[in-house]
């Protein structure tokens, strides 16, 4: 069986095994190793800090794809009460790669849509590895329109390696579904908070990432193309992905610098998967902060602000404009 841990986590996992072993031995022999165990725990924290202070973009891609990484339903379960999932696009089917529904968050009723990945082989198939199909995006659109009708804020959790890649997705108009979802989100008169929680890759990600605020977890990535696909095109070698992950500027820091996101939500030491509870608290607090700020705006202000938020994104030379760059400082 494949390791559930990343290569970069190996020193941490080894220390944890050692600590567990000591604890078991202490218990079975009725001995007191607490001083030694404490020293090892401290050492483990040092090691983790050292490793996570220096993650490469490729490390972050691995973190975003970590088999233990919390998925949309994990956050919904940890953050929300009264989650009611809705199903189907009323035209063709129900896509497991996108969940959509209503729930209560901090007492407020909200719509939540999210890309959903599977944990085991069977669930991965049902979830299609988190790659939304046209019917998934149309289901999300249906729920978002309903949210707007009932005045409910929308929380969109993005975690996808890209849109569904298959003849079936093409036959049912994956392009149109992605395009339409973006246009729809630009017109809905309720606050929309987007959080890139893991992978934010390509058209499959931007399909549900048009919001008033776009936030990113610390180890998530956001990119126009997967590093592997980029490497295949540039070098005809997907193994060069570590290199292209650097060149494509896809980390949360890069996205913030490019003006593509408003805020980075820090993850617990070692990543979101090491402390779902702490991660959810931080995520919930960030969502709450932005939703309550947006709720003071009129629907017209909200739409204008959202339009202008994306309108200004781009980096080009406009001799007629007062500023050379349309967005913030170049990278």
């Amino acid at each position: 069986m494949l390791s559930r841990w990343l290569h970069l986590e190996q020193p941490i996992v080894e220390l944890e095994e050692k600590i567990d072993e000591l604890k078991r031995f202490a218990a079975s022999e009725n001995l007191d190793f607490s001083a030694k165990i404490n020293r090892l725990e401290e050492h483990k924290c040092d090691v983790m800090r050292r490793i996570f202070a220096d993650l490469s973009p490729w490390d972050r891609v691995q973190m975003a794809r970590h088999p233990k990484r919390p998925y949309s339903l994990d956050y919904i379960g940890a953050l929300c009460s009264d989650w009611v999932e809705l199903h189907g696009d009323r035209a063709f089917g129900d896509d497991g790669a996108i969940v959509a529904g209503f729930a209560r968050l901090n007492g407020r009723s909200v719509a939540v849509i999210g890309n959903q990945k599977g944990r085991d082989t069977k669930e991965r198939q049902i979830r299609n590895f988190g790659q939304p199909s046209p019917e998934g995006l149309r289901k999300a659109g249906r729920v978002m329109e309903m949210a707007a009708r009932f005045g409910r804020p929308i929380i969109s959790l993005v975690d996808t390696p890209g849109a569904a890649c298959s003849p079936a997705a093409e036959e049912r108009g994956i392009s149109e579904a992605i395009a339409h979802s973006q246009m729809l989100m630009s017109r809905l008169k309720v606050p929309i908070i987007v959080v890139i929680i893991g992978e934010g890759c390509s058209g499959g990600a931007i399909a549900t990432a048009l919001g008033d605020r776009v936030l990113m977890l610390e180890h998530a990535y956001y990119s126009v193309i997967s590093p592997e696909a980029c490497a295949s095109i540039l070098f005809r070698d997907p193994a060069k992905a570590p290199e292209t992950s650097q060149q494509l500027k896809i980390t949360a820091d890069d996205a913030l610098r490019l003006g593509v996101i408003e805020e980075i939500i820090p993850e617990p030491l070692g990543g979101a998967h090491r402390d779902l509870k702490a991660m959810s608290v931080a995520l919930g607090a960030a969502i709450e902060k932005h939703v309550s700020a947006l709720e003071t705006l009129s629907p017209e202000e909200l739409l204008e602000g959202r339009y202008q938020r994306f309108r200004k994104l781009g980096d080009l030379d406009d001799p007629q404009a007062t500023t050379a760059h349309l967005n913030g400082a170049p990278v």
Partner: protein
Amino acid sequence: MSPEAAPVAARLEEIPANLVTKCPSCNTMLVTKDWLRDLKTCARCSHHFRLGARERIAILTENFEEWDAELAPHDPLQFPDYLPKRSAAQIKTGAKDSMLSGAATLDGRPIAIAASDFGFMGGSMGSVFGEKITRLFERALDEKRPVLTATSTGGARMQEGLMSLMQMAKTSAAVGRLREEKLPFISILTDPSMAGVQASFASLGDVLVAEPGAMIGFTGARVIEQNLRIKLPKDFQSAEFQMAHGQIDMIVPRAKLKESLAQLLSLLLD
């Protein structure tokens, strides 16, 4: 060379190289003059050759007046080899980037029109492309002009990374604004219309018109074949395939395209 062949060979050298054009689809040698008269389509198999952005606008409209010609690309990621590739494309096409837009008339009716140039880095959409398309929709809304776009593109421009991805959202939102007015948007899908562009404004036309044989889709056939280890039929993602699957409204040969567009605009506006 045989003595008999020598004079023939000598005469061949006098023939201009561009006198005939070979159809890549049926291999027929077409007389270039006739081929140009046929708007760069094959008289034998009706294969539609790709057109540059200026040619495209020229065959569809009159009185073209370019908008936003001064917009020039940057290099937001300092992406390796982006600048030399782009400079080569600029020299080849004489344009600053892959998108040409402006005002024109179509059978006398004022319109806003844009066309992408596949010859400029695969007609890819970066910041300049996205900005020009967004301004096209905004200005059309201001001046009450119907909008036509003709795409020929491989999708978003990888070398501008997230900035390219954001153009998908930006242009889709611009179509959303246009839709609040009674202004038609007709999207003309020419070979190829793929990926990030097809998954944004190009799919959002009130009417989607394709040229025969144009490849239209999101993920390229080769990528799907590699990922799923399957073999796809040759016509996968052709205009005819998309028509059969309900994804486009009509397929119109190039010679009839202008007439069809004028007819549609008239039905919606007059």
